[in-house]
Each structure stands twice: as structure tokens, then as C-alpha cells.
């Protein structure tokens, strides 16, 4: 037994056993850790793994519909969603050479086969053969039908339907309805609960004001989630997501883990706007810059609120056409501005109505009060003269005729008697120089000057010179005929006219049918109203036998139309006079033409205000439009109700 040989030693077994012990120790440590992970914290990690496994796939909700009326027929769609068919191609579903399919598509649809092949190759290169490749956005129904017809020859081609905003009347009422734009990151931060990047949000008008209502509640679908890949949702012809055979772009099966939560379409908005009248109003303003506001005089319901030039909100929906959008946004004159409540103009002679009401109510004048109009007016015998628009003068004139023939000198006198404070008080009481409360965003106030206003404006600039900021009788004279600093919106004038038509109640113009109708107690006594109405009726009357009023162009046989014209100066008279004959005055410095009208004896009673920028004379530029619009309003209603009584001749529009 030669076990003492040098190449072995006594401790060998023990040392090998030590190695075994070390290994066993390591195994025990690992087992304990496994136990800790899997058994002690198993539930916790299970939860995390479930979180990993599931993702919420969002299903977009269609936007709510905006309804209006048309020629008195209620609930006509102004804005809704149409199904847009996007043509898609999935390489994995194509069992023949995709080149063949591309060529066939090129023949049928005229798409670029080469570009499509490139995209297919790109998707396959990143191993995402199930990616839906967009062949063409928004194919017409006819093309979609042809694709269906040739489905056997086009494996892998199908359509996905998504809702897209549609404005049924195009540019008509475009500014009121507003437009949509993609949400920006700042807005997104404020309302992450209902919005995601890329969502459309109302940017102006009704779309913006009622965003909360119109934007629907998104649906949800819980699907298995992969670390990579994007779910590829297909839709049925109604745009509802299809649940079976869901895959992501890599072709992983997306099992739907839970019943899907269908998206809830946004709430509908009903507006009082009459799209027929609106279209007529916009047609009348075509080629001009101006605004028309028409209210139901009794309720304040907005029947038409036109502004020219306008824009078509549809161009903001299409993905292409960015240049067109920019052009509309930057165009001069401004298309985005609604001239009926977002722009202010000197009221001119229309302000005489306010003066007449104030003077009668304050007892400064009565029907017997007369003033002599020689064609000009001086405060002091040798002071500067203020002219009447009729240089030859109106002679001795009372309040009714002064309104009918718009005598400036009569109202210079009345204004001086009243004083600026009363004029200011009554203008505000009648709704001028303040927001009307229209349920639309960004309404402006306009301005009725007062002593306080002038002092606040000028005193900081001339603190040591009180004569600079003092209110002078001359200022009152200017204000008396609605010139100087006075500025109002056409909508405010329509509210003023509503009060005259409805018996002295100041109404709040509302567009939304659900908005509360508010109507003040009568601010004008019936006696005063009767006098004012008489004057305004005479203004529209056509002679002979009666003398012709300034608003005679709006005269409608058999209808009691009251009205008042105005031509609001926007540059100094001297500046205009240098051109001699008024036809030579450049358009940009001509007077703004106003006409405000009311209808007393038809149902519904309406009040409307027309402003044509640089239209020169209210009598010629604005009053004829009023006649046409009033005619259209009542005749279209009558025709529609006759049609309804007979039953529709053709299927609904």
C-alpha cells in the first residue's frame, strides 16, 4: 500500500466535501431567494405582471351633433359626423405577391404602386407584417364599393371607418359653428382625463363653447399588451371596432380580456339659428364686409347672425390643405372675426332712437316739442357749426319726423337738453356699450362715452390741463348723433330694436335653445314706445301721399316694418369732402351703412340689424337688404308650413 505517494494527500476528501458544501450553500441561498420572490411576494409580482400584460385600448367617441332650424322647421343638422373610409393594406393577410395587388390597386384607384411597395417593404423589414398600411385616406363610397367588388383579387386590402366632422352647410354660419383643431400640449395637461394627443378640440364658436358637451366619452377595451407593437383595430361599416381577430403590428394575438366599453357619442347641441335665413343673410352680404343680426324680438332667440367674409370650417377638418387654412386664418379682411358681436362701429343716426327714448322718458321733450332746423347748428352764436345731413335743413320739426327723416339738428338740441349723463345712462339701460350676454365666446362691449370715461382716458396724459379731459357740450352734440367715441356692435342694436318691438323689454340674445331666456321688465313706457314706433314706421314709409322716409327701401306692402337708417362717419367730413362728388370717395373711407328694422305685426316678431362696412348710406346700401331678408323670412316659413301640411314631396333633404 503506497498511499503516501506525493501526488495525493490526506485532506483531499475533506476539501472536496468543502467544495460540495459551498455549492450546496449557494443552492440554498438561491432557493431561499426564489421562495421570497415567488411565494412571499408572489401576489405582488403577479399584479405587476398583470399590469404588464394588459393595456387599455382607447376607442374614440364620435362628436355630438349640432342642430339648428331651417325655415322654421326644427332640428336640422348643422354639423355631424360622416363615416370616412380609409383604405388599408395588411401584408400578412395577402397570400399572393403584394406587387400584384399594388398593380391592381393602381389600375382601380390610380394610386402609386411603387410608393406602396416601399411602405410594405419597410413594414416587413421591421418584422411588423400586420401593420395596417394606409393606402388612401377618405376614399369615396364608389371606390370603396369597387374595392369590395374586387375583394377576391385584392387579398389584404380592406377599409377602416372612422367618424369625421361634417358641416352640412359648408361656410354658412361657419364662424358661429366654429372649427376644430388638434389639442395642444398645454391644453392636454389641463384635461388629461378625456383627451389624448391628436384629439380634436373646438377652437371657436359653438364647437369651442360646448366642447365639454360635444366631446364624447371614450370607450375602452382591455387587451393583452406586448412590449412592442401597436394594436391594429379594424372596424365594421359603422366605424365600431371589431373585436375578433385583433392583432398588433407584429401579428401577436390581442386577446380581449374584458367586455369592451363602447364609446359614448358626445351630447347634441340645439341652436335657434335658422340656417335658411342665415344663408340668405350671408348671400346678401356677399362681396361686402358687414354683419346681419336677426333676433326673435320677444325671446331674444338668434335667428341669423351673419358676418362677411366668413370661412368654411370644413377646411380645418381635412388633414391636407394647411396652406388653405393659413390663408383663411391670415386673410385680410379678417375672416375669423364675427362682425356682428366681435367688431364695433359708430352707431351714427341709430343712436337718435336712444336719444328720443331718453328725452321722452325724462320728460325733456314731448310730441309737441319742435326745433327749427336750418341745416346747421351752433352751440354759441359764433361757435363752430354742426351740420345736418340735409344741408337745406328740415325746417320746424318734431320728434316723430326727426326720427323719420333723421334730422341731426333736432337731436343736437335734445342732446344738449338731456346732458351726457342721462344719455349715457339710457344707452346702457337699452343695452348699448355693454355685452348683450350672447351665449358665444369673445363678445365685445363697445363703448358709450361719459364724463368719467373721458377723464379716465385723458387725465393720466394731461394731469395739469383740466381742459384736456373736461367734457364739453360739443362732445354731447357729437354723441347725440352717435358719432365721436360711441361704438356699438350690430347685435346690440338688434337688442335695442327688440325692445322697441316687444314692448320695452331688454332681451338677452341666445343661440342655444336650452339657454335660459331672459327678458327684463319693461324699461320703456308704452307711451314713449308708441311715439318711437310712429317715427320709425314713418321712416320706412313710402310716399306719396306721405313724405318718403330715409328707410323707404325696406317698405313692405302689408307689413308693419319699423326701421332707422344710419350712415356712420369713420373719417372726418373734411377728409371725405376733398373728393367732391360722393361717388368718388374711396371705399375705405366711406361711411358705414346701418339699417335697423323691426316687424310689429307678423308672428314671430323680429328685430334685425344690418351693417355694411363703407356702404355709404344706410338708406341705399342696408335698407334694401332688410326688405329682402324680411321677405325671405316670412315667405320661406309660410312655404315650409304649407309643405308640412301637405306632407313632404320628396324624402328629407
Amino acid at each position, binding site marked *: 500500500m503506497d498511499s503516501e505517494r506525493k501526488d495525493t494527500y490526506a485532506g483531499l476528501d475533506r476539501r472536496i466535501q468543502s467544495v460540495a458544501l459551498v455549492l450546496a450553500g*449557494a443552492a440554498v441561498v438561491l432557493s431561499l431567494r426564489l421562495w421570497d420572490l*415567488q411565494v412571499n411576494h408572489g401576489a405582488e409580482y403577479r399584479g405587476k405582471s398583470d399590469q404588464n400584460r394588459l393595456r387599455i385600448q382607447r376607442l374614440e367617441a364620435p362628436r355630438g351633433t349640432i342642430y339648428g332650424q331651417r325655415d322654421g322647421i326644427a332640428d336640422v343638422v348643422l354639423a355631424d359626423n360622416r363615416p370616412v373610409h380609409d383604405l388599408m393594406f395588411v401584408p400578412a393577410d395577402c397570400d399572393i405577391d403584394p406587387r400584384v395587388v399594388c398593380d391592381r390597386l393602381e389600375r382601380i384607384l390610380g394610386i402609386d404602386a411603387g410608393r406602396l411597395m416601399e411602405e410594405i417593404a419597410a413594414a416587413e423589414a421591421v418584422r411588423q407584417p400586420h401593420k395596417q398600411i394606409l393606402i388612401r385616406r377618405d376614399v369615396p363610397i364608389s371606390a370603396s364599393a369597387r374595392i369590395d367588388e374586387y375583394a377576391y383579387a385584392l387579398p389584404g386590402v380592406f377599409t377602416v371607418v372612422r367618424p369625421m366632422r361634417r358641416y352640412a352647410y359648408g361656410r354658412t354660419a361657419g364662424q358661429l359653428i366654429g372649427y376644430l383643431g388638434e389639442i395642444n400640449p398645454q391644453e392636454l395637461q389641463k384635461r388629461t382625463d378625456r383627451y389624448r394627443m391628436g384629439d380634436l378640440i373646438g377652437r371657436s364658436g359653438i364647437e369651442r363653447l360646448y366642447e365639454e358637451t360635444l366631446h364624447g366619452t371614450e370607450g375602452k377595451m382591455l387587451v393583452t399588451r406586448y412590449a412592442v407593437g401597436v394594436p391594429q383595430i379594424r372596424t365594421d361599416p359603422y366605424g365600431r371596432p371589431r373585436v375578433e381577430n385583433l392583432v398588433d403590428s407584429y401579428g401577436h394575438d390581442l386577446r380581449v380580456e374584458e367586455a369592451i366599453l363602447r364609446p359614448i357619442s358626445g351630447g347634441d347641441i340645439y341652436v335657434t339659428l335658422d340656417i335658411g335665413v342665415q344663408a340668405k343673410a350671408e348671400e346678401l352680404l356677399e362681396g361686402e364686409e358687414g354683419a346681419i343680426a336677426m333676433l326673435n324680438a320677444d325671446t331674444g332667440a338668434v335667428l341669423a347672425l351673419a358676418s362677411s367674409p366668413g370661412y368654411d370650417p370644413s377646411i380645418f377638418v381635412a388633414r391636407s390643405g394647411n396652406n388653405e387654412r393659413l390663408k383663411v386664418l391670415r386673410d385680410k379682411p379678417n375672416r375669423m372675426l364675427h362682425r356682428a358681436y366681435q367688431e364695433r362701429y359708430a352707431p351714427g343716426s341709430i343712436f337718435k332712437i336712444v336719444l328720443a327714448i331718453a328725452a321722452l322718458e325724462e320728460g325733456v321733450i314731448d310730441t309737441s316739442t319742435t326745433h327749427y332746423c336750418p341745416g346747421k347748428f351752433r352751440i354759441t352764436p359764433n361757435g363752430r357749426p354742426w351740420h345736418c345731413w340735409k344741408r337745406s335743413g328740415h325746417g320746424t320739426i318734431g320728434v316723430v319726423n326727426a326720427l323719420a327723416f333723421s334730422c341731426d339738428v333736432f337731436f343736437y338740441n335734445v342732446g344738449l337738453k338731456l346732458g351726457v349723463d342721462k344719455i349715457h345712462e339710457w344707452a346702457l339701460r337699452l343695452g348699448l356699450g355693454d355685452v348683450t350676454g350672447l351665449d358665444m365666446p369673445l363678445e365685445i362691449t363697445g363703448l358709450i362715452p361719459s364724463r368719467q370715461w373721458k377723464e379716465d382716458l385723458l387725465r393720466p396724459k394731461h394731469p395739469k390741463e383740466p381742459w384736456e379731459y373736461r367734457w364739453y357740450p360739443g362732445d354731447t352734440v357729437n354723441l347725440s348723433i352717435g358719432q365721436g367715441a360711441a361704438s356699438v356692435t350690430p347685435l346690440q342694436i338688434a337688442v335695442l330694436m327688440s325692445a322697441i318691438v316687444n314692448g320695452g323689454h331688454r332681451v338677452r340674445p341666445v343661440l342655444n335653445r336650452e339657454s335660459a331666456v331672459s327678458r327684463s321688465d319693461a324699461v320703456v313706457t308704452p307711451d314713449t314706445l308708441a311715439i318711437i314706433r310712429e317715427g320709425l314706421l314713418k321712416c320706412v314709409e313710402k310716399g306719396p301721399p306721405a313724405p318718403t322716409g330715409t328707410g323707404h327701401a325696406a317698405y313692405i306692402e302689408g307689413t308693419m316694418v319699423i326701421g332707422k337708417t344710419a350712415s356712420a362717419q369713420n373719417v372726418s367730413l373734411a377728409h371725405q369732402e376733398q373728393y367732391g362728388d360722393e361717388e368718388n370717395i374711396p371705399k375705405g373711407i366711406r361711411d358705414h351703412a346701418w339699417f335697423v328694422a323691426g316687424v310689429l305685426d307678423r308672428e314671430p316678431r323680429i328685430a334685425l340689424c344690418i351693417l355694411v362696412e363703407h356702404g355709404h348710406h344706410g338708406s341705399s346700401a342696408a335698407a334694401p337688404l332688410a326688405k329682402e331678408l324680411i321677405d325671405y323670412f316670412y315667405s320661406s316659413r309660410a312655404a315650409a308650413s304649407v309643405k308640412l301640411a301637405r306632407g313632404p314631396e320628396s324624402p328629407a333633404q
Partner: protein
Amino acid sequence: MSTSVMVEQEAGHIRPFNLRNIKRTDLWLAACVVALAVIGILVLYSANRSVSSGTNFYLKQAAFFVGGCGVALFLCCFDHRFLVSLGPVVFTVCCGLLVAVLVVGAEVKGGQRWLHFGPFGFQPSEYTKLAVVLMLAWYFTAIGRKIERLGYFLLAFVIGGIPAILIFKEPDLGTAATLGPITVAMLYVAGCKRWHLLAVVLTGLAAAPIAWTQLEDYQRTRVMTIMDPGADPQGSGYHTIQSMITVGSGGLRGKGYLDGTQTYLSYLPEHHTDFIFSLLAEEFGFVGGVTVLGLFMLVFLRGLQFARNSVDMTGSYLAVGVVTLLAFHVFVNIAITIGMMPVTGLPLPFLSYGGSFYLTTMTSIGILFSINARRGMFDRLDRSRNPSRYRWV
């Protein structure tokens, strides 16, 4: 243990190759190996589901196993002393190849690890592990008891250190680190002085800060990550966190075969290679994980048993070296998947997909078989009559 005394050969005259060794294959070890290989193929089948490309990893792995069995049985027929006698040559060639890799190697994923000969590419570092085991076994056999002297003791570290530094330069930290435990374990079993070893280990720990400065940035990040995987869950911590979720979500009994979600849904990258254990633990739970760990322990203990029973010291060194090599891979790989160690590319024997490492594994098993095959030929007590060095006569 063995009692039969058979003198087959005289000193210096051993048969390098003997087909009859196959009959002496250890059935325990073979059974464990087959069990692990089958589990590996099953798990890879599950991992294969989430890979959309046409590769059938599990089929290829099965082919590797069959080929590996051939290699193992072939090696089993060799006298292990003959294999060890090849050590210096193999070691020199491997070191040469490692140098070649650094000079002309192909760069893959930021590491320079591959050598290409025509269509074939291979990583010399993979085979260096076994070369070092053979070389050390040869060296310890050659010097015998002189290992107790400090000079000879340190020379062992030079043998392990040269390839380790070359591999570290590639850089391949995981493989380089493998050589350390192999060297230490073989030295220990070779009978070195304990305080020598202790001194070296302590010096190594003291030098750790210096090594830290030598690491690449990404390696340092990985080490830091293990301290706090949540710090960068989408970046460096992603692997660790997802792997822990995968393992943890398996629970006691697992989600069921083919019902794993983490790996199926591609949350865990590399789940068919370095992170295959997570998939196993997810689908088979704690029970499955511990079972596989137990099978590995059986392999290791069987290997160490062979080391004890070996008729010569060469066999003991070799067996300990091979077992350490496999055990290091198993323990470190599992430790990585359960978030105990920084992420390093170390495969799990039998389970991780990959041909090269499968070959290494089966070669190791073949060597163990070979050592065991000679067990019964001589009585252990009669070791002196049996030359432990193969002489080229």
C-alpha cells in the same frame, strides 16, 4: 468503494482511447443530464412561441443535445490523463486565439469576441474555460505537493490570469470572472496552503476598487443597478425588474406550461438565452425552479463524488474544475435572473439556447464520465501503482 483490482496497464502505458468506457457511464449523472436536457427543450418550446421568425430554437437545441451526447460519449472513451496531457497545447492555442480576437476579431454588440474562419465563427473565450481547467489539472499533476510552496501556488494564478485578462479586454466580464472560481477551487482541492489562498482572496477584495476603475461604463451601471433596479426601470434596470416580475409572478406552482405571459408578450428580452430560467420559474413556479436547481446540484455532487473516487489526483482536479465551471454558470445565471447579481451574459447549462455553450457543457459532462469510467479499474488504495501522468511513449 470499488473493490476489484484489475491491472490493465503498467506505469506509463495507458490506453488513451477505450470504447469499453461507454459501458461504465454513470447512470445517475446520465439520468440528471437527460432530465435537464429534456426540461431545457420543453422550456425553449415555450420560449419559441413569442419569436415570430421561423427559427425553431427548441428543435435546434434538441439537435445540439443529440450532438452533445455523441461528444460526451466520445470523450468518455478517452483516458482523462490523456486529455489532461493535451492541456498545455490546448491552453497555448486558446491564448493565441484570444490575442488574435483582440487584434482581428469581429465586433458584435460592442464586444470583440468572435473569430471567423470562412463561414464559421466562434468565440475562443468559450473554449478557454475548459482549456484553463485542463491546463491547471496538468500543472497540479506535474508539480504534485510542491503546490504548498508560494511560487508554485502563484504560478497557478498566472495560468488562470493570462486568459482572464485577455477575455476581460474583449470585454467579456462574465467569462473572465468564471476563471477565478475555477482557479481557486482547483487550487484548494490540489492542496495548497489555506493561508495562501486566504491571502490571495483578501488581496483580491482589497484590489476591487482598482478593478472598478477598469470597468467599462455600462458594466459599472449594471453593478449599480443591482443595488437599486427601480432607479431606471426603462433603462438599465429594465432587465432586472422584468426578470424579477417574471420569476415572482410564477408563484409557488407557476402559471402553467405555455401559459407564461411575461415572456410570451416579449416583456423579457433574451428570454430564450440568458433569461431562460425566468421563463421556467414563471411557468413552473417555485416548484419547477427548485427542481431544476436540485437536478443541477445532483450533477455537481455526482461530479464531486467522482473527484473523490478518482483513482488519481489528475481526475480529482479535473472533476473539481469541471464542476466549478458548470456550477459557476448555474448559480450566477440564476442569481442574475432573480436580481441578486448584475446583468452579465452568462448562459444556463442545458436550458439556454446556444450551440457553443451546449458543446462546452456536454464536453464537461463527457470529461466527468471519463474520470468515472476509470474508477473501477484500480482500487483507490492502489493509487500508487497507477501513474497519474500520461507519458507520451
